[in-house]
């Protein structure tokens, strides 16, 4: 999903305001300060090697901020001026983190592009000094080395990284709508070649140590150590330091060359890149691909291409200048504000606000081995949760077990797991048809068919066998949890856990609490969700909770637009060009026509006219003909195994023709169609906040983007209102209200925001 892609990484931005260094003049005064204790950076001298250790206090990660930079300059000046020191090692004392990037707050505090450009230029100058250092500097990398951290590392003369799963190198700036602003766009292409550099900077993907070694991004690998004379993490860092020191000495003595032997392929690539025509072709290809994928919604990738091009074609000076200027421009865009907001929100939603549960969940049981049930099992077993998967028939259970195995096996194919680990994880899964072992379950998640009486039946059956402390969670997308809990003997232990399909890909988990759900039950559910790697929003119970409730009016509008004669393909292209990762018609097929009808019917009953729009009859007739969407092979499109381009299902035309609605020309321009969909979504989301279903706008944005594919470039419905302007949205709603009535009536909170422009969801 684009959504998850966009923010999927732990990055902080790189750049930092540095104190203008008075240079060597000051060295006489700071000479003895090796003994001084600085806050973030300290160094000691071992033989003739300075070991510079970064360790920001009170934080799990090191980030490049103003203080860090000024301390770094001080330390480097001392290293450079000392006669005793011939080389240096740069290392972090934190396990699992070298430098995670620059301090985001420093960037968001800026109000003009010039300020940001200045930050970038100061960082560029510093890193250039590091690059040109006559005393070799070895970056010893253990843990995340991202953004500014990577830019610093590639400025050093040599890089040694631990071959640990936590050691990830990357330039995730693009995911925050900006670019590497401390020389990264200029150094990375030289180091790993233009194509690989584009790949890193345009996708923001993290690169593991062994791959980094192959690419030439790091020069040596160090294996992480097991238990010995000290805790493994501690000793590994120490060992990394010891190894780095020997290399630093070797470099200073010229016994080791910092230049790497290039392989044949690499030599050929670099030769090809020296031909201007080839370069032009590559720029063109990459640009085309970026345009196609971003649909022009994200400015950062194109600017990155531009800056890299400037550096290669016009020289480094022009490149650095262009980098810092474009960096300043990008940091001020709405897109980067939206993406940074999502990044922050994601971090927030990865914490358990409810504290640690009284009893840790170790034994999980899942009822129903369908797509959802097996998906939940898949994300549980590889986190070490003992998982029972129960279904009613052997065939259904076997399908579910196969799904879990395939999911794990795909990871083996991608080399993310070894076959041995796969087998060990798979043995955490017990498939069964009865309730054996449920007496030991700490949590039961039911994922049976969406039918209230069936859910009641399993709840009663399960409660007869589970222990008192066991949590009963229902994976439902629309049935109110309190109705399910109505037959429970212990409603305080009943909670909703709404996963999104496919469970292993979708990051969101929506947890639904009723008035009776205890805090400990919620804490337990959040804990399990976090363990499963989910981003979590906790919402109040109600019809459709938050996500389904926002989606339903938009879906209703989708049907109406189709009835008004806009074809599914056209509708899909309108929605994707607005930034939705999946087109609206395709989305109906993916969700399932029967599910969509079920939800529309249920919520329609509760919310009445506000959820009206398209006719339910369209969905009913599709179901009658067996067009249930992807799962049945036909929906608005025809799905065939192995066929990439899906074709329209022409049988739909007759259904739509028979239920045709007159279109209203003044609200049917392409843009109007897009906004009819989005404003209904946004209006409902804001209403959820107004009614207290949502606890915060952040959760609303995270839920919409990660669960429903709301355009990440807009940052979620609430960020969208802030950035686009509440007044403009209310105006649009009023216009559509005039044409269609109450479905578009803006909610009170939105109107309040429109009437007082200072009111923002994010201050």
């Amino acid at each position, binding site marked *: 999903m684009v959504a998850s892609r966009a923010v999927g990484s732990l990055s902080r931005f790189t750049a930092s305001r540095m104190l203008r260094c008075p240079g060597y003049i000051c060295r006489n005064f700071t000479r003895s300060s090796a003994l001084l204790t600085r806050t973030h950076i300290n160094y000691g001298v071992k033989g003739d090697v300075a070991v510079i250790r970064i360790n920001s206090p009170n934080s799990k990660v090191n980030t490049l901020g103003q203080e860090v930079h000024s301390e770094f300059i001080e330390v480097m000046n001392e290293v450079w001026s000392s006669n005793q020191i011939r080389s240096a090692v740069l290392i972090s004392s934190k396990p699992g983190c070298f430098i995670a990037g620059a301090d985001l707050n420093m960037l968001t505090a800026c109000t003009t592009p010039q300020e940001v450009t200045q930050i970038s230029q100061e960082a560029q100058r510093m890193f250039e000094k590091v690059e040109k250092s006559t005393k070799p500097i070895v970056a010893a990398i253990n843990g995340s080395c991202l953004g500014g951290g990577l830019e610093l590392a590639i400025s050093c003369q040599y890089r040694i990284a631990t071959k640990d799963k936590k050691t990830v190198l990357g330039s995730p700036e693009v995911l925050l709508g900006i670019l590497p602003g401390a020389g990264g766009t200029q150094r990375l292409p030289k180091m790993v070649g233009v194509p690989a550099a584009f790949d890193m900077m345009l996708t923001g993907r993290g690169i593991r140590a062994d791959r980094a070694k192959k690419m030439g991004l790091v020069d*040596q690998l160090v*294996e992480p*150590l*097991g*238990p*010995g*004379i*000290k*805790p*493994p993490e501690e*000793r590994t860092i*120490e*060992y990394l330091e010891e*190894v780095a020191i*020997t*290399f630093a000495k070797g470099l200073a003595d010229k016994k080791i060359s910092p230049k790497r032997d290039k392989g044949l392929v690499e030599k050929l690539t670099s030769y090809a890149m020296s031909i201007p025509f080839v370069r032009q072709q590559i720029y063109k290809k990459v640009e085309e691909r970026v345009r196609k994928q971003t649909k022009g919604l994200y400015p950062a990738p194109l600017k990155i291409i531009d800056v890299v091009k400037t550096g290669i074609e016009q020289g480094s000076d022009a490149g650095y200048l262009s980098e810092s200027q474009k960096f300043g421009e990008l940091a001020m865009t709405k897109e980067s504000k939206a993406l940074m907001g999502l990044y922050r929100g994601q971090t927030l939603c990865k914490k358990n606000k409810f504290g640690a549960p009284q009893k840790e969940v170790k034994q999980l049981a899942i009822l129903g081995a369908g797509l959802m049930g097996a998906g939940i099992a898949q994300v549980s077993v590889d986190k070490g949760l003992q998982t029972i998967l129960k279904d009613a028939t052997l065939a259904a259970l076997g399908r579910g077990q196969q799904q879990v195995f395939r999911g794990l096996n795909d990871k083996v194919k991608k080399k993310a797991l*070894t076959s*041995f680990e796969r087998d060990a994880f798979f043995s955490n899964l017990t498939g069964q048809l009865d309730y054996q072992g449920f007496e030991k379950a700490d949590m039961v998640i039911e994922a049976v068919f969406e039918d209230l009486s069936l859910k009641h039946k399993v709840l009663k059956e399960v409660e007869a066998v589970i222990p008192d402390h066991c949590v009963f969670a229902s994976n439902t997308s629309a049935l109110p949890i309190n109705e399910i809990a109505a037959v429970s003997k212990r409603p305080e232990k009943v909670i909703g856990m709404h996963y999104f399909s496919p469970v292993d890909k979708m990051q969101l988990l929506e947890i639904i609490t009723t008035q009776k759900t205890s805090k400990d039950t919620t804490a337990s559910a959040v804990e399990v969700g976090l363990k499963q790697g989910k981003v979590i929003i906790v919402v109040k119970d109600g019809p459709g909770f938050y996500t389904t409730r926002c989606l339903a009016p938009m879906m209703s509008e989708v049907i109406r637009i189709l009835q008004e004669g806009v074809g599914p393909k056209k509708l899909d292209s309108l929605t994707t060009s607005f930034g939705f990762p999946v087109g609206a018609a395709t989305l109906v097929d993916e969700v399932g026509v029967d599910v969509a009808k079920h939800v529309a019917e249920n919520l329609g009953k509760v919310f009445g006219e506000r959820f009206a729009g398209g006719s339910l009859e369209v969905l009913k007739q599709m179901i009658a003909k067996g067009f249930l969407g992807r799962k049945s092979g036909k929906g608005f499109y025809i799905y065939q195994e192995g066929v990439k381009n899906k074709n329209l299902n022409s049988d739909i035309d007759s259904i739509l023709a028979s239920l045709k609605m007159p279109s209203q020309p003044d609200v049917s321009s392409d843009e109007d169609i897009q906004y009819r969909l989005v404003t209904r979504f946004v209006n409902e989301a804001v209403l959820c906040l107004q009614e207290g279903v949502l606890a915060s706008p952040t959760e609303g944005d995270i839920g919409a983007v990660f669960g429903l594919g709301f355009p990440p470039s807009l940052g979620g419905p609430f960020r969208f209102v802030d950035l686009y302007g509440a007044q403009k949205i209310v105006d649009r709603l009023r216009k559509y209200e005039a044409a269609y009535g109450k479905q578009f009536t803006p909610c009170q909170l939105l109107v309040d925001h429109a009437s007082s422009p200072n009111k923002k969801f994010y201050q």
Partner: protein
Amino acid sequence: MTSLLTYTLKYLPSTSQWTLRFSMRPLSCSSQLRAAAAVQAKSKRTLAKPNLRNIVVVDGVRTPFLLSGTSYKDLMPHDLARAALSGLLHRTSVPKDVVDYIIFGTVIQEVKTSNVAREAALGAGFSDRTPAHTVTMACISSNQAMTTAVNLIASGQCDVVVAGGVELMSDVPIRHSRKMRKMMLDLNKAKTLGQRLSLISKFRLNFLSPELPAVAEFSTNETMGHSADRLAAAFAISRLEQDEYALRSHSLAKKAQDEGLLSDVVPFKVPGKDTVTQDNGIRPSSLEQMAKLKPAFIKPYGTVTAANSSFLTDGASAVLILAEEKALAMGYKPKAYLRDFVYVSQDPKDQLLLGPTYATPKVLEKAGLTMNDIDAFEFHEAFSGQILANLKAMDSDWFAQNYMGRKAKVGSPPLEKFNIWGGSLSLGHPFGATGCRLVMATANRLQKEGGQYGLVAACAAGGQVCHRSFIGASRKSFSWKQNKFIQECLI
């Protein structure tokens, strides 16, 4: 896993008989008796257990251990095993038909002789009525053979068992790729020419790439040398320390060889070649020479080199194990009691080679002894770094508390009692045969030095076999094992 067998000095009536016998051997009598007196002065107690049969080792032999690719290179594993069995027959004069059972350990199996114990026994002229089976447990396969023998005797199933081990690294099975095998098997089943042709048409050149026996741990894909290098680093053991330890091993082995202490070695006339009389891997070198070698596994900065690792070795060993009353009845003067053993297993990634550390305190506790009570330690030396890491771990309170769930360290064995006749680093390490060598070295040392208790420990890599058969009940433990014997000597 650790197995620990104890050999006991007995102060029971039967002992007096043996003492008597000693006195009739004028040559060895005086020194041995004095030693015996000294031991008795220490008045260590016996480790005999009520209601359990006492089990003894009468004697044991081994072929000379040779570097792979030297004189044994044209043999098959059962040839070597047969040589060890013949040697044992000759040394002990045990009547062939008295032997109830034969067990051999081996690691890399020759497919043609997968039950190498049986093939060797038949060839060595044992009765064809004597059953034989083969066990495998990586580097402690022959320890497993011996403990299996002990169990057979203790449970009353057998009285006389031959246990041994063999490894021929000069030749290893290299297989066709799975795809090629599949095609060949399918071809076998194909009935018509058409079927055959269609199968052959699927042939691709990459089918021909051979499959080498895995040198890496199956579960982690890490080679053992690599693991040893990381282990040494985890315990901060320098290259110099490792080289020094390796040099010690070679020097001590050389001394023992020169002084004729390696009495378990029996000469072997290799068909078509000269008679081999002694181990050929003992090469004391200088620290300067050793320092020149490049790291073998973690390049370019690792510390494990060819000089401080055990080398690929061919060799076989065998011991004769009896119930005590049977041994006495047959007129034997056994060398040692096998008393107690423990197998343990740990995480195969980071603690692959740390078994001796885990097993030693366990087996000592089981036997009611302390480190100080042990007179002879024989630990398998896979790598210098591994031995030194184990010594450090045993001497670390921090490690004992954080990883072994113990209150305090067990203490490391004093080096003057430790592998003083050389070890696997210098004598060689034929995977399947090392366990018996360790036990015989312990027994012979105790006899020579007049000690009472000996302790044997070995670490081993592991496949799933051990994991399942020994620790099936515990989910998290992996296949890691090591053997240990406490031995009480007779003298």
